């Protein structure tokens, strides 16, 4: 895709799942990619499996001081940032009545405050430099209701509105969009769902299967590239048709 070769890219949560797939795809497209992740062991594994990775930073996106320090390291190791893939996130399956204040704060801190903290550091650099692109990680859970993820859903709805607001404030220098995946079979989801649950989900999806991390990575690459130069402020659903309407009425 045009406009990715030689660009400096940061992928948060880049050591695993969709983040790692995005990092791999952007390296394939010729970009210079750094990953940031709080999981140091996963960072080391990612460094081994991602050929051509430019830099690795270990930091927790929910900690403002760690984010500032991470960006200082990136200024040195990656150089002026062109593209931010603001992906880091966590989810915990809990009925609403079981969510503790600690869990609520942890989910919101990583998924929403983390996106804010990283985007702010990135945007300051992009506005002062040659512009750039931010792509945030939303979710179809931020667009419609789901059982047992009230904290996660609220955090993703927050990311979606943050995306629109940033698109307005940072235009025309920086484009800001979000991707909203449905059921993607990441290690995080494989750990959460039994194979019976996965089959039950697939039956409710028009394409009759869960998505793959590489398919979301392709959408990140498109929204980061010059191919999407006129797209900003949008939240793009990638869900095999799941929220197009629903198959509940099918016999």
């Amino acid at each position, binding site marked *: 895709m045009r406009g990715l070769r030689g660009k400096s890219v940061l992928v948060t949560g880049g050591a695993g799942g969709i983040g790692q797939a995005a990092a791999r795809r952007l390296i394939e497209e010729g970009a210079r990619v750094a990953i940031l992740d709080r999981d140091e062991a996963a960072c080391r594994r990612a460094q081994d499996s991602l050929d051509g990775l430019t830099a690795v930073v270990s930091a927790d996106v929910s900690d403002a001081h760690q984010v500032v320090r991470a960006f200082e390291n990136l200024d040195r190791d990656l150089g002026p940032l062109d593209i931010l893939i603001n992906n880091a996130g966590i989810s915990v399956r809990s009925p609403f009545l079981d969510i503790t204040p600690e869990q609520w704060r942890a989910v919101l801190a990583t998924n929403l405050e983390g996106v804010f903290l990283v985007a702010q550091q990135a945007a300051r650099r992009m506005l002062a430099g040659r512009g750039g692109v931010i792509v945030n990680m939303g979710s179809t859970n931020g667009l419609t209701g789901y059982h047992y993820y009230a904290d996660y859903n609220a955090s993703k709805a927050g990311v979606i509105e943050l995306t629109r*607001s940033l698109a307005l404030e940072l235009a025309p220098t920086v484009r800001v969009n979000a991707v909203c995946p449905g059921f*993607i079979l990441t290690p995080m989801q494989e750990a959460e769902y039994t194979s019976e649950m996965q089959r039950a989900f697939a039956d409710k999806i028009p394409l009759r299967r869960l998505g793959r991390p590489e398919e*979301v990575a392709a959408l990140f690459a498109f929204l980061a590239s010059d*191919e999407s130069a006129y*797209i900003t402020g949008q939240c793009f*659903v990638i*869900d095999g*048709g799941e929220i*197009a*309407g629903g198959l509940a009425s099918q016999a």
Partner: protein
Amino acid sequence: MGTLDHKRALITGAASGIGAAAAQLFAAEGAALALLDRDVAGGRGVADRIERDGGRAAFIACDVTRAADCAAAVTQAVERLGGLDIVLHCAGIIVRRSVVDLDEADWDRVLDVNVKSVYLISRLTIPVLRSGGGGSIITVASGWGLVGGPQAAAYCASKGAVVLLSKAMAIDCGPDRIRVNCLCPGDTDTPLLRGEAQQLGIAEESFLAASARRPLGRVGTPREIAQAALFLAGEASSYVTGSTLLVDGGGLAGG
């Protein structure tokens, strides 16, 4: 090597604007094309230019509001290309009138070109895609298929219909590995946009300047909309269906 090597695409409304830009881009990415339009001179011109540049494109004259025309055109397209993988519905018109000022004939014309054509072409092409093992259908609605706009009652109604027709088709066609997505351009520098200025009696340049009032500070180019169509047409969007992709310079991001 192109993104659409060995793919065969049918494009309606291919003689100008977004349809013509998509034809050029898809051909450059390796697709073989059937270009449908009722504008024979314009459509031939687009096809000739693509062939001159080394691409493959056949023009087929077709009024997409007429079932008989559509049937003949799809038959001819399948014969020429040997099948279909991609269908891009660009044919569209706008009449800038409120409900009270709109003639019944104009209502019918806008709904026929913008919505009925998608139905007519889809019922003919979905079986072709299905027998080839799947494919990608891209409809073109508008930002005004998602929110209303002034003095464009029939157009807004038609584009809103296209948004949900696309989702309904995505649900029905998913098991056949046919993806259906809806591209929603904002104001784009096309003959249609310039025609709106004329209909409203506004000087073209001041109409375009007003249209540019959005976060990116400009109207889109047909090429930029075509790039989004290319994404939806190709393998890069293999898990995307039933989706709307708004390409509008941030126009509908908010205030």
